[in-house]
């Protein structure tokens, strides 16, 4: 089934479209009037358990939102709901104009979820991986090359099998795949896990650059100091509810 045409106000994908963006939204997000994500009293159930119990919040284009909270609070569930992997049991939830109650399969091609694994093929090279994911949305060779350049995997790493990369390089390759397949909303679950200091710095720089190019990024992390300095906004998730929203 073809995905419906997104609303005309939908933000352009970040890949190769940085010049089309209305300036660096990263520094001046307006989540309500420019909402990419709009949740109102959303309930999601895992098994018999209400993993999200009435979540209301908005995220604007180009924002980097940090989800913080203890283990089991519902951060990962919230990300999976945003990715269209869980049904909305109650309330209204839209992402990029898609209603998650009725269009959760359609929204998937517009968002990218990066969890503890990178979703890469270890025996293929960096270029082959980015090409594969790009080709799923008919990305051109130019777009694929741009994605690799933006994530810093275009030169000496391009022909290296992913199996031989460091954890940080794998993360950057995975992000290049997200860019190549034109994901507009990036959902990152503990993105710093397993990275050394250099890898973390590289990842942070990559995320800031991506948000400045128009990508909307939601990060679930326990590393509050690092992720907090990266985020434009912090949302606290406790017991399946968004309890407070703090300015970063």
């Amino acid at each position, binding site marked *: 089934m073809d995905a419906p045409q997104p609303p005309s106000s939908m933000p352009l994908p970040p890949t190769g479209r940085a010049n089309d963006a209305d300036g660096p939204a990263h520094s001046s997000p307006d989540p309500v009037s420019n909402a990419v994500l709009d949740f109102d009293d959303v309930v999601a159930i895992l098994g018999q358990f209400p993993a999200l119990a009435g979540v209301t919040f908005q995220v604007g284009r180009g924002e980097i939102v940090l989800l913080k909270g203890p283990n089991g609070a519902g951060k990962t569930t919230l990300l999976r709901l945003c*990715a269209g992997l869980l049904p909305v049991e109650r309330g209204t939830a839209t992402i990029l104009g898609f209603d998650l109650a009725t269009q959760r399969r359609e929204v*998937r091609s517009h968002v990218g979820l990066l969890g503890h694994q*990178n979703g890469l093929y270890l025996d*293929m090279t960096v270029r082959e991986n980015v090409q594969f994911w790009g*080709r799923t949305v008919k990305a051109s060779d130019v777009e694929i090359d741009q994605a690799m350049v933006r994530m810093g995997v275009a030169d000496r790493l391009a022909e290296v099998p992913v199996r031989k990369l460091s954890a940080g390089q794998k993360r950057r390759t995975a992000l290049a795949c997200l860019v190549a397949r034109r994901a507009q909303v990036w959902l990152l679950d503990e993105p710093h896990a397993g990275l050394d200091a250099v890898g973390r710095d590289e990842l942070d720089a990559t995320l800031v650059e991506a948000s400045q190019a128009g990508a909307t990024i939601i990060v679930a992390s326990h590393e509050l100091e690092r992720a907090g300095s990266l985020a434009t906004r912090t949302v606290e998730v406790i017991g399946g509810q968004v309890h407070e929203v703090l300015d970063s």
Partner: protein
Amino acid sequence: MNTWALARLIAAKDLRVERRSKIVTNQVLPFAGITMISFAFVLDKQSVIDTVAPGLIWLATMFSLLILVQRSFGIETDDGALDAMRVAGVDAGAIFLGKAMALAVQLFVLEAMLFAAAVIFYGESIQSGRSVLAFFNEPMDVNGVEVALTGVTSPGQSPILATVLLVTTMISATCGLAAVGTLYGGLAAGFKGSETLLPLLTIPAVAPVLIGATKAVESAVGTSGAAVSEGWQWVSLLAVFAVAAGVGGALAFGPLIDD
């Protein structure tokens, strides 16, 4: 991107990964060969081998199928790529068809090797396969033993028809095995203990293929005097099974890997 284009992309990716890793050539093919040799040792009597050789080929194929399917989904789960495809909204039907196509190509190569192994390792058993090999019209020397490949098994049987039957059987059985293997491989990939779950699910499901393919090959090679004409009904069964498994798999794969 339409379903077929995506399926071709996924199949090409799978075949590229296998060509790069050489798991199939270095591990699966030798495993299949060893299985064939083991059967010969265990059965020992040439008369028994002559009778059961077609079935042994398909048994070895089925065992190898399990490894190929484990491998096919292993590359998807090593780093969460199957989940990533699901999250990316890649059409589940295309994933199924692409992986089944790649699996079918590997299986076909494997079966060709197994038939060759049956000729080499089962020695006199190829006497019953002369109808298929009659094209060559030359005696073959295998480890000092002259193996006659000329003539036909049963008077009046066409070696061309027998060969067509054999190839058609291989193609239709391969499609059925690949479809069932991919379907249950995707299902098992989401569970802990998928290595043990996969055989439990797959072996009963492919039983009709094993039976039909064995009967059809018996007809093609003239085991126990079976005629070529008797094999086509089994090929029909295999074709129906392949179509049903392919269509059913493409429809069911999405819900299976999604939920």
